[in-house]
């Protein structure tokens, strides 16, 4: 399925300072019934991440942390069962999971004197039962399950999607009888940075020669095209010579035209997988 740039921009438009909650996603779905939830979620997630990246700093000043913590304490004293932390995060326009981490860190600092290590915090976020304070545990848990853009559960979903799509891609390649080397084989050959698959015999899709395929399993917006091009694709390019990057996400023709560097990848929409496996199939088959 191909999204036009206009459609994409319309969606992105709706996402300006919307909290990353179930409710927002539901509204989005009602607004764009023709798009799959996965596509919407992916766009949502990316837009939100961009937003957080921009505003991250202001939540991490010590004054901000202190004031959040005090507000949390006051709120909990009033009513421990109310979604204090979640409301706080939504109010200040910050991701609930990240807010939970912030408060947890602050809490541990106060109660344990030594600054808690990152791994301790991470494991507490994964399993809030480990948090010594029951009320905080519930608050943190609430934040995590209500956050659809950050948090351990979301990370796991992303990871799972990545893995699944790699498997799907492999199946497709096998089905199409294309000979390829996968990442493990490439690593065994001594490559340090590898795409997911290198085609042993290049193929042409819509007039573009494809040497390797990298599965990104996320919506290919302009920004990620640029970023990935920069971080990964050029290094493959250098390594594997004339590689054509075919990061076929559900990048849109309109979208890709907007940036010269992305045009090549978006022109090959479909060899790449994207959020919807069904779409992937369709694109690859055409």
């Amino acid at each position: 399925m191909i999204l036009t740039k206009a459609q994409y921009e319309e969606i992105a438009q709706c996402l300006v300072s919307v909290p990353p909650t179930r409710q927002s996603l539901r509204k989005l779905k009602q607004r764009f019934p023709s798009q799959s939830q996965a596509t919407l979620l992916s766009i949502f997630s990316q837009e939100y991440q961009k937003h957080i990246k921009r505003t991250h700093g202001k939540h991490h000043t010590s004054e901000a942390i202190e004031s959040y913590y005090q507000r949390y304490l006051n709120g909990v004293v009033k009513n421990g069962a109310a979604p204090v932390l979640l409301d706080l995060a939504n109010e200040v326009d910050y991701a609930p999971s990240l807010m939970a981490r912030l408060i947890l860190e602050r809490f541990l600092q106060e109660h344990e004197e030594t600054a808690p290590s990152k791994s301790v915090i991470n494991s507490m976020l994964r399993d809030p039962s480990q948090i010594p304070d029951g009320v905080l545990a519930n608050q943190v848990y609430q934040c995590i399950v209500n956050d659809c853009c950050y948090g351990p559960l979301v990370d796991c979903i992303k990871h799972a999607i990545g893995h699944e799509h790699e498997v799907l891609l492999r199946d497709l390649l096998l089905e199409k009888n294309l000979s390829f080397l996968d990442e493990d084989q490439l690593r065994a050959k001594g490559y340090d940075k590898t795409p997911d698959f290198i085609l042993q015999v290049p193929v042409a899709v819509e007039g573009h020669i494809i040497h390797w395929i990298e599965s990104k399993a996320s919506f290919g917006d302009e920004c990620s095209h640029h970023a990935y091009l920069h971080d990964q694709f050029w290094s493959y390019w250098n390594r594997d010579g004339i590689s054509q990057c075919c990061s076929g996400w559900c990048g849109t023709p309109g979208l890709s035209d907007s940036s010269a560097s992305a045009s090549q990848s978006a022109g090959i929409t479909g060899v790449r997988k994207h959020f919807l496996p069904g779409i992937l199939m369709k694109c690859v088959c055409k």
Partner: protein
Amino acid sequence: MAAVLESLLREEVSVAAVVRWIARSTRGSEVTALTRPQDNPGEAAALSSLRPLRKEFVPFLLNFLREQSSRVLPQGPPTPAKAPGASAALPGRPGGPSRGSRGARSQLFPPTEAPSTAAEAPLARRGGRRRGPGPARERGGRGLEEGVSGENLPGAGGRRLRGSGSPSRPSLTLSDPPNLSNLEEFPPVGSVPPGPTGTKPSRRINPTPVSEERSLSKPKTCFTSPPINCVPNSQPSALDTSPWGLGLPPGCRSLQEEREMLRKERSKQLQQSPTPTCPTPELGSPLPSRAGSLTDEPADPARVSSRQRLELVALVYSSCIAENLVPNLFLELFFVFQLLTARRMVTAKNSDPELSPGVLDSLESPLFQSIHDCVFFAVQVLECHFQVLSNLDKGTLKLLAENERLLCFSPALQGRLRAAYEGSVAKVSLAMPPSAQAVSFQPETDNRANFSSDRAFHTFKKQRDVFYEVLREWEDHHEEPGWDFEKGLGSRIRAMMGQLSAACSHSHFVRLFQKQLLQMCQSPGGAGGTVLGEAPDVLSMLGADKLGRLWRLQERLMAPQSSGGPCPPPTFPGCQGFFRDFILSASSFQFNQHLMDSLSLKIRELNGLALPQHEPSDEDGESDVDWQGERRQFAVVLLSLRLLAKFLGFVAFLPYRGPEPPPTGELQDSILALRSQVPPVLDVRTLLQRGLQARRAVLTVPWLVEFLSFADHVVPLLDYYRDIFILLLRLHRSLVLSQESEAKMCFLNKLLLLAVLGWLFQIPTVPEDLFFLEEGPSDAFEVDTVAPEHGLDAAPVVDQQLLYTCCPYIGELRKLLALWVSGSTGRSGGFMRKITPTTTTGLGAQPSGTSQGLQARLAHAFFHNQPPSLRRTVEFVAERIGSNCVKHIKATLVADLVRQAESLLQEQLVTQGEEGGDPAQLLEILCSQLCPHGAQALALGREFCQRKSPGAVRALLPEETPAAVLSSAENIAVGLATEKACAWLSANITALIRREVKAAVSRTLRAQGPEPAARGERRGCSRACEHHAPLPSHLISEIKDVLSLAVGPRDPDEGVSPEHLEQLLGQLGQTLRCRQFLCPPAEQHLAKCSVDLASLLVADQIPILGPPAQYRLERGQARRLLHMLLSLWKEDFQGPVPLQLLLSPRNVGLLADTRPREWDLLLFLLRELVEKGLMGRMEIEACLGSLHQAQWPGDFAEELATLSNLFLAEPHLPEPQLRTCELVQPNRGTVLAQS
């Protein structure tokens, strides 16, 4: 200058400040730089007052060191003619100005020391290179000896000893000039009569006048001269009193002569005595016999005087070297090696009356007061340059590592050197060329169609014949003592040239000439070494074993004579001499012009050749094999370029070189004006600039240096060439070895450039002041990087073999060390290995006597008669098959071994328990078991090549190839491929196995991971699975939605239907049964989410869609869902499920919020857990027990206690009874809880 050194020694300024100070002067940014913050103001002030002297500091330092060491290295007298400015610049020295350097020098070399002053020390002899601008003119005086043409006129006497015009050495010319080149008339070295040779050097750096060599008709004179300080000299130093101030370098010439004599003597001995015991006797024996008193002084670190001072000077000196402030890195190393191997101190120093004992000035007292000081100083400097040392060839490293003085003064350095030696693979061979080979007839150019007439074609063919006749005659005779090129061949050559009337005939002949030149001189050893290094060419590979041994032997017999000190003049070794003499004898300007055209064209072509660029990142065992080929190709191109450029330079500057001194004053100006109009024969400036821009300096600069080395005296003064020199100087300065800039240039590439540039700066025609006076180029050397990211410079194209081939003078270092060893052999038992002959015949330099040599020549002849494509094909096949063979072995044998290693490892782990022991130890055990199997690789490889090569050759050659040719080609290909593969395998197989096994071990250990039990039973989906299950990511996302609904906050109309929950759990089951898309982290999260879901079910916290009154899950539905979960946990999850979380305070706490509280589901769940064996009773009890410790509301704690009592009270009954019990009292828990 001295003031600087003194203030340094007095610790007024730091070493770093001084080095900054010097370096800055050469960069010209003085004013601002002086006030840079890192300079201590005091230091800056102290130094700034000396600013004008800055540029003279380095020359001063070098001269100072040479002078100081003169007593130790008697063969190297101190600086003869210092810059006037330099001596005046000793403000702090009371007697400074009055003490002319002459006085000091003559005191250092009183006649009584004669026996110990060896004459052969070009290095130290050059001590006084730096002179003021004034003396620079005088230098020209030497130039007259460099003329070529004069001596090459027919009859002018090629053997005449040159330089008769030099007034400074009358005694020499009078004594017996002709004898010097006459082998028979000269007595062995040991008995060399006192001659005029023990003279003083004129410059620090230039040992020998160049063109004398060039002008000799006998090529061999050029490149043979013994190494230096080893040859003690019994000549009285009568000449020491000869006028220093003349500015003429008497030493050079006499030096030359002595070398000549030595070389002849040695070669005579070689020829006369077939007993090839070793070269040692010649080198070593004179020592004791002649200079019995000259025993080596042992050096003792404990007896070093003024350590600190030495350390300081060593540090400054090292820093100057490291910053490339000295002209020639290897020259300085040579000097340091000389100090290291100094044998004995001359003790007569106190005869200097001017050295008043009261003066404590740090410069007044000698720096080196004893041999201990010298060695200490040398070791200090060497420590700073370990990196360079470790990149020398293996032989040098070995000698260094075995040097007992080094061991005694710095065991640490010795240890590092030993390690470097053991790790080094840089075996360098400087074998001599095999027999020459004629260029085969070239049908594409040498045919009638390319000639204007039949007659011209016929003439060309006849000339060809004459040319080869001349060549063969030269080959046969040129080593005979009395033979003279001009006398023997000159008239025939000129007659032949006379027949070349048409211009096109000239060009044809020139093409032949050039091809022959390349063929003879560039291919193995023509220029004094084998080109092909580790991967020798076809011929050397055939039967490489014994042939190689013979060549090594030959090399050891020949090598010591093969170069002339650390800075030899440009020469035409070996076959090159023929071509040089041919050009001179022909003396045809048409020929020269055509030759220059042709050489220029070829140089441009080769210089622009796109050489394969190396990808630095995929280095691998296999690509190593391939990479050798590329390195080899680079070596071939580079050596060809150097050869062509040398001849181009020779021919191009031939008309301008003459015996008369370079002009001065107005005459010079007019010559300059004239010459500056002449366009350069080849636009080398542009080529150099482009080369630098494209990061191909490693290719361009070495040949350019060859070209420039033949320039005449006027050339460096021309603007055009001055630009080139300035570019080269900046390049030289920018090549700081210690700067690790892999991306920019490889270490050995830098070393090569430094070596050739350093050599160029020592050529007499290059003005001595050029290097130090260079003030103009202010900024650091910057190349506009329009260049590709990886230029040739960044690729490791240079290896030690190529380095030593291009710069044979680096080998002098090794000889110096070897001489030290041989000198001390008599005493200490010796390190010198004797060559043990295996046969008594055929030990001559010719390997041809052996059948393998014959075989090689046969193969060569075979290829010669076949089209060139045949040879290319065979080499190509051999190359590919060899490489494939390695890959095949890797994929079969090595992979098998790795599998064995894995199973062995499993056994180990089983027997040793979970810990398994130290991984490194495990690896050792495995490797010791497996590596011996690597030996099979050779047999397998041989078999592989045997099997594969013939087919490939057959497929690639034309169908019509005669059977005999085909089978020969096949055999050669098999041999070469086997050779190549086996060479690689035998060198690397053990390392390869080790590496692979190591990777496998770490893989296995990692996979073993923290929970070895969890992994064993992981299973895939069933055979029938079609992978249509929902994706794990989708499920996690769905369950997360339910959880978030349950945890809230939620809108009033939100909720889930019981059907949806059931469906969800059903899907979860499907997903878990289809493992296709499931990765461990996803499964872990699914497990955890399912536990959370169960807790919410138990606490009845899930909002249910439906009539508002209901809003809660029915008991029965809840139980059904819990049953589904239980069975998922039991049957479908393959990873651990965190069931204990069900009883975590947080999840149990959920119950506290429900009103009325219902405990029956929890009790039910607990029972089922136990029944299904998912949790043990004890475990649950423990969890319940810990629950009591948490803070609960009063009533909740009570109910909890009741629940746990109830659970504990249940008898440990087998399942059926439990179930009945449950049926009978379905709501017991609830009742209890509510009571």
